[in-house]
Protein backbone atom coordinates (compact mmCIF):
# COMPACT_ATOMS: atom_id res chain seq x y z
CA UNK A 1 0.00 0.00 0.00
CA UNK A 2 1.20 3.47 -0.79
CA UNK A 3 2.38 5.44 2.19
CA UNK A 4 0.87 8.77 3.02
CA UNK A 5 4.24 10.44 3.46
CA UNK A 6 4.83 10.61 -0.29
CA UNK A 7 1.75 12.05 -1.94
CA UNK A 8 1.91 12.01 -5.74
CA UNK A 9 2.99 15.12 -7.55
CA UNK A 10 -0.55 15.70 -8.75
CA UNK A 11 -1.90 16.16 -5.26
CA UNK A 12 0.48 19.01 -4.64
CA UNK A 13 -0.01 20.59 -8.04
CA UNK A 14 -1.11 24.16 -7.68
CA UNK A 15 -2.51 26.77 -10.00
CA UNK A 16 -5.55 26.70 -12.18
CA UNK A 17 -3.78 25.43 -15.27
CA UNK A 18 -4.31 26.60 -18.80
CA UNK A 19 -7.80 27.11 -20.15
CA UNK A 20 -9.23 24.28 -22.21
CA UNK A 21 -8.12 24.58 -25.84
CA UNK A 22 -10.67 25.63 -28.45
CA UNK A 23 -9.56 22.68 -30.55
CA UNK A 24 -10.45 20.29 -27.72
CA UNK A 25 -13.77 21.98 -26.94
CA UNK A 26 -14.80 21.85 -30.60
CA UNK A 27 -13.68 18.22 -30.74
CA UNK A 28 -15.77 17.38 -27.67
CA UNK A 29 -18.90 19.01 -29.12
CA UNK A 30 -18.25 17.26 -32.44
CA UNK A 31 -18.18 13.90 -30.65
CA UNK A 32 -21.35 14.79 -28.74
CA UNK A 33 -23.22 15.74 -31.91
CA UNK A 34 -22.29 12.73 -34.00
CA UNK A 35 -22.52 10.14 -31.22
CA UNK A 36 -26.30 10.58 -31.17
CA UNK A 37 -27.95 8.22 -33.58
CA UNK A 38 -30.49 10.82 -34.60
CA UNK A 39 -27.91 13.29 -35.98
CA UNK A 40 -26.84 11.46 -39.15
CA UNK A 41 -30.39 10.24 -39.71
CA UNK A 42 -32.04 13.66 -39.45
CA UNK A 43 -29.36 15.45 -41.49
CA UNK A 44 -29.36 12.68 -44.11
CA UNK A 45 -33.14 12.70 -44.42
CA UNK A 46 -33.23 16.50 -44.71
CA UNK A 47 -30.60 16.60 -47.44
CA UNK A 48 -32.23 13.78 -49.44
CA UNK A 49 -35.70 15.28 -49.02
CA UNK A 50 -34.77 18.76 -50.26
CA UNK A 51 -32.72 17.43 -53.15
CA UNK A 52 -35.66 15.23 -54.10
CA UNK A 53 -38.08 18.18 -53.82
CA UNK A 54 -35.81 20.19 -56.17
CA UNK A 55 -35.70 17.28 -58.59
CA UNK A 56 -39.45 16.82 -58.43
CA UNK A 57 -40.15 20.54 -59.03
CA UNK A 58 -37.69 20.63 -61.93
CA UNK A 59 -39.27 17.54 -63.43
CA UNK A 60 -42.72 19.17 -63.29
CA UNK A 61 -41.38 22.33 -64.98
CA UNK A 62 -39.62 20.26 -67.60
CA UNK A 63 -42.68 18.16 -68.43
CA UNK A 64 -45.16 21.03 -68.48
CA UNK A 65 -42.91 23.52 -70.29
CA UNK A 66 -44.45 22.96 -73.78
CA UNK A 67 -47.87 23.90 -72.38
CA UNK A 68 -46.72 27.11 -70.72
CA UNK A 69 -48.23 30.35 -72.03
CA UNK A 70 -45.87 32.55 -74.02
CA UNK A 71 -45.33 35.16 -71.31
CA UNK A 72 -44.24 32.47 -68.86
CA UNK A 73 -41.84 30.98 -71.38
CA UNK A 74 -40.23 34.42 -71.76
CA UNK A 75 -39.39 34.62 -68.08
CA UNK A 76 -39.04 31.21 -66.43
CA UNK A 77 -37.97 31.08 -62.77
CA UNK A 78 -36.71 27.56 -62.00
CA UNK A 79 -35.00 28.67 -58.79
CA UNK A 80 -38.37 29.71 -57.40
CA UNK A 81 -39.61 26.17 -57.88
CA UNK A 82 -36.46 24.46 -56.57
CA UNK A 83 -36.41 26.61 -53.43
CA UNK A 84 -40.11 26.75 -52.75
CA UNK A 85 -40.88 29.01 -49.77
CA UNK A 86 -43.55 26.94 -47.92
CA UNK A 87 -41.50 23.74 -48.23
CA UNK A 88 -38.47 25.49 -46.78
CA UNK A 89 -40.39 26.52 -43.68
CA UNK A 90 -40.12 22.89 -42.64
CA UNK A 91 -36.35 22.97 -43.17
CA UNK A 92 -36.10 26.04 -40.97
CA UNK A 93 -38.22 24.43 -38.25
CA UNK A 94 -36.12 21.27 -38.37
CA UNK A 95 -32.85 23.20 -38.24
CA UNK A 96 -34.23 25.13 -35.25
CA UNK A 97 -35.15 21.86 -33.59
CA UNK A 98 -31.66 20.45 -34.18
CA UNK A 99 -30.19 23.52 -32.49
CA UNK A 100 -32.69 23.31 -29.65
CA UNK A 101 -32.01 19.61 -29.07
CA UNK A 102 -28.26 20.23 -28.86
CA UNK A 103 -28.93 22.43 -25.81
CA UNK A 104 -31.96 20.74 -24.30
CA UNK A 105 -30.30 17.33 -24.63
CA UNK A 106 -27.77 18.54 -22.05
CA UNK A 107 -30.18 20.31 -19.74
CA UNK A 108 -32.93 17.69 -19.68
CA UNK A 109 -30.52 14.82 -19.05
CA UNK A 110 -28.36 16.66 -16.52
CA UNK A 111 -25.33 16.14 -18.77
CA UNK A 112 -24.77 19.89 -18.58
CA UNK A 113 -23.45 19.39 -15.03
CA UNK A 114 -20.93 16.77 -16.15
CA UNK A 115 -19.95 19.05 -19.03
CA UNK A 116 -19.39 22.06 -16.77
CA UNK A 117 -17.50 20.03 -14.18
CA UNK A 118 -15.18 18.99 -17.01
CA UNK A 119 -14.83 22.56 -18.31
CA UNK A 120 -16.00 25.25 -15.87
CA UNK A 121 -15.64 28.07 -18.44
CA UNK A 122 -19.29 28.16 -19.49
CA UNK A 123 -18.92 30.77 -22.19
CA UNK A 124 -16.27 28.77 -24.01
CA UNK A 125 -18.23 25.53 -23.74
CA UNK A 126 -21.43 26.95 -25.19
CA UNK A 127 -19.62 28.93 -27.87
CA UNK A 128 -17.90 25.73 -28.97
CA UNK A 129 -21.29 24.04 -29.18
CA UNK A 130 -22.76 26.94 -31.15
CA UNK A 131 -19.77 26.82 -33.52
CA UNK A 132 -20.17 23.11 -34.20
CA UNK A 133 -23.95 23.37 -34.71
CA UNK A 134 -23.46 26.39 -37.00
CA UNK A 135 -20.77 24.69 -39.08
CA UNK A 136 -22.72 21.47 -39.55
CA UNK A 137 -25.97 23.26 -40.45
CA UNK A 138 -24.10 25.64 -42.79
CA UNK A 139 -22.73 22.63 -44.67
CA UNK A 140 -26.28 21.26 -44.86
CA UNK A 141 -27.54 24.58 -46.23
CA UNK A 142 -24.70 24.75 -48.76
CA UNK A 143 -25.31 21.19 -49.96
CA UNK A 144 -29.04 21.84 -50.33
CA UNK A 145 -28.36 25.11 -52.16
CA UNK A 146 -25.72 23.81 -54.58
CA UNK A 147 -27.29 20.37 -54.91
CA UNK A 148 -30.81 21.68 -55.46
CA UNK A 149 -29.70 24.05 -58.19
CA UNK A 150 -27.39 21.47 -59.80
CA UNK A 151 -30.22 18.95 -60.00
CA UNK A 152 -32.56 21.60 -61.38
CA UNK A 153 -30.08 22.48 -64.12
CA UNK A 154 -29.53 18.84 -65.00
CA UNK A 155 -33.26 18.20 -65.35
CA UNK A 156 -34.42 21.31 -67.22
CA UNK A 157 -31.47 22.31 -69.40
CA UNK A 158 -32.56 20.50 -72.58
CA UNK A 159 -35.84 22.46 -72.68
CA UNK A 160 -35.38 25.58 -70.55
CA UNK A 161 -32.06 27.19 -71.44
CA UNK A 162 -30.19 30.22 -70.18
CA UNK A 163 -29.58 29.05 -66.61
CA UNK A 164 -26.29 28.00 -65.01
CA UNK A 165 -24.24 28.49 -61.86
CA UNK A 166 -23.40 31.95 -63.19
CA UNK A 167 -27.00 33.13 -63.48
CA UNK A 168 -27.18 36.47 -61.63
CA UNK A 169 -28.52 35.98 -58.10
CA UNK A 170 -27.99 32.24 -57.84
CA UNK A 171 -24.99 32.61 -55.54
CA UNK A 172 -26.96 35.00 -53.38
CA UNK A 173 -29.60 32.31 -53.10
CA UNK A 174 -27.02 29.63 -52.26
CA UNK A 175 -25.25 31.89 -49.75
CA UNK A 176 -28.58 32.89 -48.23
CA UNK A 177 -29.54 29.24 -47.75
CA UNK A 178 -26.08 28.46 -46.31
CA UNK A 179 -26.57 31.23 -43.76
CA UNK A 180 -30.28 30.75 -43.07
CA UNK A 181 -30.08 27.11 -41.95
CA UNK A 182 -27.49 27.69 -39.18
CA UNK A 183 -29.21 30.91 -38.09
CA UNK A 184 -32.35 28.84 -37.48
CA UNK A 185 -30.21 26.41 -35.46
CA UNK A 186 -28.89 29.26 -33.31
CA UNK A 187 -32.41 30.56 -32.72
CA UNK A 188 -33.31 27.04 -31.60
CA UNK A 189 -30.36 27.00 -29.18
CA UNK A 190 -31.40 30.31 -27.64
CA UNK A 191 -35.00 29.13 -27.29
CA UNK A 192 -33.90 25.92 -25.60
CA UNK A 193 -31.55 27.83 -23.30
CA UNK A 194 -34.48 29.88 -22.08
CA UNK A 195 -36.97 27.03 -21.80
CA UNK A 196 -34.70 24.04 -20.96
CA UNK A 197 -37.58 21.58 -21.15
CA UNK A 198 -37.63 19.28 -24.19
CA UNK A 199 -41.28 19.43 -25.15
CA UNK A 200 -41.57 23.13 -24.40
CA UNK A 201 -38.50 24.02 -26.45
CA UNK A 202 -39.53 21.99 -29.47
CA UNK A 203 -43.04 23.40 -29.35
CA UNK A 204 -41.73 26.97 -29.16
CA UNK A 205 -39.34 26.39 -32.05
CA UNK A 206 -42.02 24.83 -34.25
CA UNK A 207 -44.47 27.60 -33.40
CA UNK A 208 -41.91 30.28 -34.22
CA UNK A 209 -40.87 28.82 -37.57
CA UNK A 210 -44.16 27.35 -38.79
CA UNK A 211 -46.81 29.60 -37.27
CA UNK A 212 -44.80 32.84 -37.08
CA UNK A 213 -44.51 33.48 -40.84
CA UNK A 214 -48.24 32.82 -41.27
CA UNK A 215 -49.28 34.82 -38.22
CA UNK A 216 -47.74 38.05 -39.53
CA UNK A 217 -49.81 37.67 -42.68
CA UNK A 218 -53.00 37.75 -40.66
CA UNK A 219 -54.54 40.97 -39.40
CA UNK A 220 -52.81 41.84 -36.17
CA UNK A 221 -54.37 44.27 -33.74
CA UNK A 222 -52.65 47.65 -33.23
CA UNK A 223 -50.48 47.27 -36.33
CA UNK A 224 -50.97 48.91 -39.70
CA UNK A 225 -50.47 46.79 -42.80
CA UNK A 226 -47.10 48.37 -43.42
CA UNK A 227 -45.92 47.81 -39.88
CA UNK A 228 -47.07 44.22 -40.14
CA UNK A 229 -45.13 43.76 -43.35
CA UNK A 230 -42.03 45.31 -41.78
CA UNK A 231 -42.39 42.99 -38.81
CA UNK A 232 -42.75 40.01 -41.12
CA UNK A 233 -39.70 41.02 -43.11
CA UNK A 234 -37.56 40.82 -40.01
CA UNK A 235 -38.40 37.13 -39.59
CA UNK A 236 -35.64 34.79 -40.79
CA UNK A 237 -38.08 33.07 -43.13
CA UNK A 238 -38.90 36.24 -45.10
CA UNK A 239 -35.30 37.44 -44.96
CA UNK A 240 -34.31 34.21 -46.69
CA UNK A 241 -37.29 34.53 -49.00
CA UNK A 242 -35.98 37.92 -50.10
CA UNK A 243 -32.44 36.63 -50.67
CA UNK A 244 -33.66 33.73 -52.82
CA UNK A 245 -35.88 35.90 -55.04
CA UNK A 246 -34.16 35.97 -58.42
CA UNK A 247 -36.90 37.05 -60.81
CA UNK A 248 -37.45 40.72 -61.45
CA UNK A 249 -40.46 42.87 -61.85
CA UNK A 250 -42.89 40.59 -60.06
CA UNK A 251 -42.54 41.92 -56.52
CA UNK A 252 -45.94 43.22 -55.52
CA UNK A 253 -45.67 43.01 -51.76
CA UNK A 254 -43.80 45.31 -49.41
CA UNK A 255 -40.45 43.52 -49.25
CA UNK A 256 -37.20 44.41 -47.58
CA UNK A 257 -34.04 45.33 -49.44
CA UNK A 258 -31.30 42.75 -49.97
CA UNK A 259 -28.96 44.34 -47.39
CA UNK A 260 -31.82 44.55 -44.90
CA UNK A 261 -32.41 40.83 -45.35
CA UNK A 262 -28.74 40.05 -44.67
CA UNK A 263 -28.78 42.33 -41.63
CA UNK A 264 -31.92 40.65 -40.34
CA UNK A 265 -30.31 37.18 -40.46
CA UNK A 266 -27.15 38.54 -38.82
CA UNK A 267 -29.07 40.17 -36.00
CA UNK A 268 -31.02 36.97 -35.33
CA UNK A 269 -27.73 35.05 -35.14
CA UNK A 270 -25.99 37.54 -32.86
CA UNK A 271 -28.93 37.98 -30.51
CA UNK A 272 -29.40 34.21 -30.29
CA UNK A 273 -25.73 33.62 -29.41
CA UNK A 274 -25.79 36.41 -26.83
CA UNK A 275 -28.88 34.92 -25.16
CA UNK A 276 -27.43 31.41 -25.24
CA UNK A 277 -24.12 32.46 -23.69
CA UNK A 278 -25.23 35.03 -21.11
CA UNK A 279 -28.19 33.08 -19.76
CA UNK A 280 -26.10 29.95 -19.24
CA UNK A 281 -23.32 31.93 -17.56
CA UNK A 282 -25.67 33.39 -14.99
CA UNK A 283 -27.75 30.37 -14.16
CA UNK A 284 -27.56 27.61 -11.57
CA UNK A 285 -27.59 24.36 -13.50
Amino acid at each position, binding site marked *: *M*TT*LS*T*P*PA*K*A*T*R*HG*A*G*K*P*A*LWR*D*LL*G*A*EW*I*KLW*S*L*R*STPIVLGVLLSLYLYLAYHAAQLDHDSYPTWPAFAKLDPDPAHDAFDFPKFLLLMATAGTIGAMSVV*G*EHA*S*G*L*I*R*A*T*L*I*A*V*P*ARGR*VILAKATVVTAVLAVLGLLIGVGGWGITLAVISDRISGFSFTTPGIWRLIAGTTVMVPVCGLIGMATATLIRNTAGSVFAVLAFFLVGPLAVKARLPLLSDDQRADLGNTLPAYAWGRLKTMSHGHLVERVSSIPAAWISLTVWAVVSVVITVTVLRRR*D*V
Partner: protein
Amino acid sequence: MIEINQLTKRYGSVLAVDGVSFCVQPGQVTGFLGPNGAGKTTTMRMLLGLNAPTSGTATINGRPFREFGTGLRHVGALLDAGDVHRGRTANAHLAALARSNGLPRRRVEEVLEMVGLGEAGRRRVGSFSLGMRQRLGIATALLGDPPVLLFDEPINGLDPEGIRWARELFRRLAAEGRTVFVSSHLMSEMEHTADHLIVVGDGRLLADEPLADFAARATTAGATVQTPDPAALAEVLRNAGASVLSQGHDTLTVTGLTTARINELAFTHRVLVHEVSAHVGTLEDAFMELTAASVQYRASATPGRSKDR
Protein backbone atom coordinates in the same frame (compact mmCIF):
# COMPACT_ATOMS: atom_id res chain seq x y z
CA MET B 1 -7.71 20.43 -0.05
CA ILE B 2 -11.26 21.72 -0.03
CA GLU B 3 -12.09 24.85 1.97
CA ILE B 4 -15.66 25.93 2.58
CA ASN B 5 -16.05 29.26 4.32
CA GLN B 6 -19.38 30.63 5.62
CA LEU B 7 -21.12 29.14 2.60
CA THR B 8 -24.79 30.06 2.33
CA LYS B 9 -27.43 29.33 -0.29
CA ARG B 10 -30.94 30.69 -0.13
CA TYR B 11 -33.73 29.59 -2.48
CA GLY B 12 -36.49 32.10 -1.91
CA SER B 13 -37.48 31.65 1.70
CA VAL B 14 -35.66 28.34 2.09
CA LEU B 15 -32.18 28.43 3.55
CA ALA B 16 -30.66 25.33 1.94
CA VAL B 17 -27.15 25.91 3.28
CA ASP B 18 -26.65 28.20 6.26
CA GLY B 19 -23.18 29.56 6.95
CA VAL B 20 -21.32 26.27 6.68
CA SER B 21 -17.52 26.23 7.12
CA PHE B 22 -15.16 23.25 7.02
CA CYS B 23 -11.99 21.90 5.44
CA VAL B 24 -11.45 18.59 3.72
CA GLN B 25 -7.86 17.36 4.01
CA PRO B 26 -5.96 15.28 1.47
CA GLY B 27 -4.80 11.76 2.21
CA GLN B 28 -7.98 10.60 3.90
CA VAL B 29 -11.57 9.81 3.09
CA THR B 30 -13.90 12.47 4.45
CA GLY B 31 -17.53 11.49 4.82
CA PHE B 32 -20.19 14.13 4.27
CA LEU B 33 -23.27 13.05 6.15
CA GLY B 34 -26.72 14.38 6.66
CA PRO B 35 -30.35 13.41 6.27
CA ASN B 36 -32.17 13.99 3.00
CA GLY B 37 -32.49 17.70 2.30
CA ALA B 38 -29.67 18.63 4.69
CA GLY B 39 -27.86 20.62 2.00
CA LYS B 40 -25.15 18.13 1.01
CA THR B 41 -25.79 18.22 -2.72
CA THR B 42 -26.27 22.01 -2.74
CA THR B 43 -22.93 22.39 -0.96
CA MET B 44 -21.22 20.14 -3.50
CA ARG B 45 -22.81 21.99 -6.40
CA MET B 46 -21.60 25.33 -5.06
CA LEU B 47 -18.15 23.84 -4.57
CA LEU B 48 -18.19 22.83 -8.24
CA GLY B 49 -19.37 26.22 -9.46
CA LEU B 50 -22.67 24.82 -10.73
CA ASN B 51 -24.72 26.93 -8.31
CA ALA B 52 -23.73 30.40 -7.21
CA PRO B 53 -23.60 30.80 -3.42
CA THR B 54 -25.75 33.51 -1.86
CA SER B 55 -22.70 34.33 0.25
CA GLY B 56 -19.48 32.70 1.38
CA THR B 57 -16.75 30.97 -0.57
CA ALA B 58 -15.77 27.47 -1.59
CA THR B 59 -12.31 26.74 -2.92
CA ILE B 60 -10.40 23.70 -4.09
CA ASN B 61 -6.64 23.86 -3.57
CA GLY B 62 -7.02 27.57 -2.99
CA ARG B 63 -9.07 28.48 -6.03
CA PRO B 64 -12.77 28.73 -6.83
CA PHE B 65 -13.59 25.81 -9.12
CA ARG B 66 -14.66 28.09 -11.96
CA GLU B 67 -11.08 29.32 -12.30
CA PHE B 68 -9.82 25.92 -13.40
CA GLY B 69 -9.36 25.68 -17.14
CA THR B 70 -9.65 21.93 -17.43
CA GLY B 71 -11.80 20.77 -14.55
CA LEU B 72 -11.27 17.03 -14.92
CA ARG B 73 -7.53 17.35 -14.36
CA HIS B 74 -8.07 19.11 -11.03
CA VAL B 75 -11.32 17.71 -9.63
CA GLY B 76 -13.18 14.52 -10.42
CA ALA B 77 -16.80 14.48 -9.41
CA LEU B 78 -19.80 12.21 -9.46
CA LEU B 79 -22.84 14.25 -8.56
CA ASP B 80 -25.71 12.24 -9.99
CA ALA B 81 -25.36 9.03 -11.96
CA GLY B 82 -28.25 10.23 -14.11
CA ASP B 83 -26.29 13.20 -15.48
CA VAL B 84 -25.69 11.40 -18.76
CA HIS B 85 -27.42 11.55 -22.14
CA ARG B 86 -29.06 8.16 -22.44
CA GLY B 87 -28.70 8.05 -26.19
CA ARG B 88 -24.90 7.94 -26.16
CA THR B 89 -22.65 4.96 -25.59
CA ALA B 90 -20.46 4.93 -22.50
CA ASN B 91 -17.45 5.27 -24.81
CA ALA B 92 -18.85 8.34 -26.56
CA HIS B 93 -19.90 9.99 -23.29
CA LEU B 94 -16.44 9.62 -21.79
CA ALA B 95 -14.67 10.39 -25.07
CA ALA B 96 -16.41 13.77 -25.35
CA LEU B 97 -15.53 14.70 -21.76
CA ALA B 98 -11.94 13.46 -22.14
CA ARG B 99 -11.56 15.39 -25.37
CA SER B 100 -12.76 18.63 -23.79
CA ASN B 101 -9.85 18.41 -21.35
CA GLY B 102 -7.33 17.29 -23.95
CA LEU B 103 -7.03 13.85 -22.35
CA PRO B 104 -5.89 10.99 -24.59
CA ARG B 105 -8.58 8.68 -25.91
CA ARG B 106 -7.01 5.64 -24.24
CA ARG B 107 -8.06 7.07 -20.84
CA VAL B 108 -11.63 6.12 -21.76
CA GLU B 109 -10.82 2.43 -22.01
CA GLU B 110 -8.61 2.65 -18.92
CA VAL B 111 -11.26 4.12 -16.64
CA LEU B 112 -13.97 1.81 -17.99
CA GLU B 113 -11.71 -1.16 -17.17
CA MET B 114 -11.03 0.35 -13.75
CA VAL B 115 -14.73 0.47 -12.83
CA GLY B 116 -15.55 -2.90 -14.34
CA LEU B 117 -17.42 -1.64 -17.40
CA GLY B 118 -14.76 -2.71 -19.90
CA GLU B 119 -17.27 -4.83 -21.79
CA ALA B 120 -20.06 -2.27 -21.76
CA GLY B 121 -18.33 0.64 -23.48
CA ARG B 122 -20.24 0.22 -26.72
CA ARG B 123 -23.63 0.00 -25.08
CA ARG B 124 -25.93 2.97 -24.85
CA VAL B 125 -26.18 4.42 -21.37
CA GLY B 126 -29.99 4.18 -21.54
CA SER B 127 -29.67 0.40 -21.28
CA PHE B 128 -27.52 0.58 -18.11
CA SER B 129 -28.77 -0.35 -14.64
CA LEU B 130 -28.48 2.23 -11.88
CA GLY B 131 -25.43 0.42 -10.53
CA MET B 132 -23.76 0.54 -13.94
CA ARG B 133 -24.52 4.25 -14.24
CA GLN B 134 -22.93 4.81 -10.82
CA ARG B 135 -19.84 3.03 -12.09
CA LEU B 136 -19.87 5.16 -15.23
CA GLY B 137 -20.12 8.27 -13.03
CA ILE B 138 -17.14 7.08 -10.98
CA ALA B 139 -15.27 6.45 -14.25
CA THR B 140 -16.03 10.04 -15.28
CA ALA B 141 -14.57 11.32 -12.01
CA LEU B 142 -11.40 9.29 -12.55
CA LEU B 143 -10.87 10.39 -16.18
CA GLY B 144 -8.46 13.23 -15.49
CA ASP B 145 -6.56 11.44 -12.68
CA PRO B 146 -7.40 14.40 -10.41
CA PRO B 147 -5.94 15.15 -6.94
CA VAL B 148 -9.40 15.97 -5.55
CA LEU B 149 -12.43 13.69 -5.85
CA LEU B 150 -16.05 14.30 -4.88
CA PHE B 151 -18.73 11.65 -4.83
CA ASP B 152 -22.35 12.43 -4.04
CA GLU B 153 -24.12 9.31 -2.75
CA PRO B 154 -21.97 7.00 -4.90
CA ILE B 155 -23.24 3.83 -3.26
CA ASN B 156 -26.87 4.15 -4.39
CA GLY B 157 -27.79 1.29 -6.64
CA LEU B 158 -24.54 -0.64 -6.27
CA ASP B 159 -24.72 -4.34 -5.46
CA PRO B 160 -22.85 -5.68 -2.39
CA GLU B 161 -19.80 -6.49 -4.48
CA GLY B 162 -19.94 -3.01 -5.97
CA ILE B 163 -20.23 -1.38 -2.55
CA ARG B 164 -17.15 -3.21 -1.34
CA TRP B 165 -15.30 -2.28 -4.52
CA ALA B 166 -16.25 1.40 -4.20
CA ARG B 167 -15.15 1.46 -0.56
CA GLU B 168 -11.79 0.01 -1.44
CA LEU B 169 -11.44 2.43 -4.33
CA PHE B 170 -12.07 5.45 -2.08
CA ARG B 171 -9.56 4.19 0.47
CA ARG B 172 -6.99 3.54 -2.25
CA LEU B 173 -7.48 7.01 -3.76
CA ALA B 174 -7.01 8.58 -0.34
CA ALA B 175 -3.96 6.43 0.34
CA GLU B 176 -2.44 7.85 -2.83
CA GLY B 177 -2.59 11.26 -1.17
CA ARG B 178 -5.74 12.54 -2.87
CA THR B 179 -8.55 14.46 -1.25
CA VAL B 180 -11.62 12.20 -1.22
CA PHE B 181 -14.97 13.67 -0.20
CA VAL B 182 -17.91 11.26 -0.15
CA SER B 183 -21.46 12.19 0.77
CA SER B 184 -24.04 9.79 2.09
CA HIS B 185 -27.19 9.76 4.14
CA LEU B 186 -26.28 6.35 5.51
CA MET B 187 -23.99 6.30 8.53
CA SER B 188 -23.42 2.57 8.13
CA GLU B 189 -21.80 3.34 4.80
CA MET B 190 -19.32 5.81 6.25
CA GLU B 191 -18.44 3.56 9.14
CA HIS B 192 -16.30 1.40 6.90
CA THR B 193 -15.02 4.07 4.56
CA ALA B 194 -14.39 7.43 6.17
CA ASP B 195 -11.55 8.62 8.39
CA HIS B 196 -13.16 11.94 9.09
CA LEU B 197 -16.80 13.01 9.22
CA ILE B 198 -18.57 16.22 8.39
CA VAL B 199 -22.20 16.11 9.45
CA VAL B 200 -24.81 18.60 8.34
CA GLY B 201 -28.48 18.91 9.14
CA ASP B 202 -30.99 21.46 7.99
CA GLY B 203 -28.29 23.39 6.16
CA ARG B 204 -26.06 23.82 9.22
CA LEU B 205 -22.80 22.17 10.21
CA LEU B 206 -23.40 19.75 13.09
CA ALA B 207 -20.06 18.01 13.44
CA ASP B 208 -16.59 18.09 11.90
CA GLU B 209 -14.34 15.52 13.57
CA PRO B 210 -12.50 12.22 13.18
CA LEU B 211 -14.63 9.11 12.94
CA ALA B 212 -13.42 7.86 16.33
CA ASP B 213 -14.46 11.08 18.09
CA PHE B 214 -17.81 10.93 16.43
CA ALA B 215 -18.39 7.38 17.62
CA ALA B 216 -17.68 8.53 21.18
CA ARG B 217 -20.68 10.83 20.96
CA ALA B 218 -23.02 7.88 21.20
CA THR B 219 -23.02 8.14 25.00
CA THR B 220 -26.73 7.78 25.41
CA ALA B 221 -26.32 4.08 25.04
CA GLY B 222 -29.33 2.48 26.60
CA ALA B 223 -30.37 -0.69 28.29
CA THR B 224 -32.89 -3.36 27.53
CA VAL B 225 -34.95 -4.53 30.47
CA GLN B 226 -37.19 -7.58 30.68
CA THR B 227 -39.85 -7.47 33.32
CA PRO B 228 -43.25 -9.13 33.89
CA ASP B 229 -44.65 -5.74 34.92
CA PRO B 230 -43.43 -3.23 32.34
CA ALA B 231 -46.08 -0.61 33.15
CA ALA B 232 -44.99 -0.28 36.78
CA LEU B 233 -41.29 -0.29 35.99
CA ALA B 234 -41.72 2.25 33.19
CA GLU B 235 -43.39 4.65 35.59
CA VAL B 236 -40.62 4.25 38.17
CA LEU B 237 -37.90 4.79 35.58
CA ARG B 238 -39.64 7.79 34.02
CA ASN B 239 -39.96 9.39 37.45
CA ALA B 240 -36.20 8.95 37.76
CA GLY B 241 -35.71 10.91 34.55
CA ALA B 242 -35.18 8.14 32.00
CA SER B 243 -36.84 7.86 28.62
CA VAL B 244 -38.56 4.57 28.28
CA LEU B 245 -39.85 2.88 25.22
CA SER B 246 -42.01 -0.21 25.43
CA GLN B 247 -41.06 -3.02 23.09
CA GLY B 248 -43.24 -6.06 23.14
CA HIS B 249 -45.27 -7.08 26.20
CA ASP B 250 -42.36 -7.55 28.59
CA THR B 251 -39.46 -5.52 27.25
CA LEU B 252 -38.47 -1.89 27.81
CA THR B 253 -35.74 0.09 26.14
CA VAL B 254 -34.34 2.62 28.58
CA THR B 255 -32.02 5.50 27.93
CA GLY B 256 -30.65 8.04 30.38
CA LEU B 257 -29.91 5.63 33.23
CA THR B 258 -27.11 3.18 33.86
CA THR B 259 -27.91 -0.51 34.24
CA ALA B 260 -26.84 -0.33 37.89
CA ARG B 261 -29.29 2.49 38.56
CA ILE B 262 -32.10 0.62 36.82
CA ASN B 263 -31.44 -2.39 39.05
CA GLU B 264 -31.43 -0.21 42.15
CA LEU B 265 -34.69 1.46 41.25
CA ALA B 266 -36.37 -1.84 40.46
CA PHE B 267 -35.19 -3.25 43.75
CA THR B 268 -36.30 -0.28 45.90
CA HIS B 269 -39.71 -0.16 44.20
CA ARG B 270 -40.16 -3.91 44.36
CA VAL B 271 -40.63 -4.53 40.69
CA LEU B 272 -39.46 -7.91 39.45
CA VAL B 273 -36.82 -7.72 36.72
CA HIS B 274 -35.69 -10.74 34.69
CA GLU B 275 -32.86 -9.19 32.77
CA VAL B 276 -31.08 -5.87 32.38
CA SER B 277 -28.60 -5.67 29.51
CA ALA B 278 -26.66 -2.64 28.36
CA HIS B 279 -26.28 -1.93 24.66
CA VAL B 280 -23.50 0.27 23.41
CA GLY B 281 -24.16 3.19 21.16
CA THR B 282 -23.31 2.85 17.51
CA LEU B 283 -22.24 5.44 15.00
CA GLU B 284 -25.73 5.12 13.63
CA ASP B 285 -27.16 6.15 17.00
CA ALA B 286 -24.79 9.09 17.28
CA PHE B 287 -25.83 10.20 13.84
CA MET B 288 -29.52 9.78 14.49
CA GLU B 289 -29.31 11.72 17.75
CA LEU B 290 -27.31 14.51 16.20
CA THR B 291 -29.60 14.93 13.25
CA ALA B 292 -32.90 14.15 14.96
CA ALA B 293 -33.72 17.82 15.32
CA SER B 294 -32.96 18.63 11.72
CA VAL B 295 -34.62 15.82 9.83
CA GLN B 296 -36.79 17.52 7.26
CA TYR B 297 -38.66 14.73 5.57
CA ARG B 298 -39.76 12.25 8.18
CA ALA B 299 -42.20 9.50 7.37
CA SER B 300 -45.26 10.00 9.56
CA ALA B 301 -45.68 6.26 10.17
CA THR B 302 -42.55 5.85 12.31
CA PRO B 303 -42.24 8.82 14.60
CA GLY B 304 -42.48 6.88 17.87
CA ARG B 305 -38.84 5.96 18.25
CA SER B 306 -37.41 9.40 17.95
CA LYS B 307 -40.26 11.03 19.86
CA ASP B 308 -39.43 9.01 22.95
CA ARG B 309 -35.78 9.94 22.90
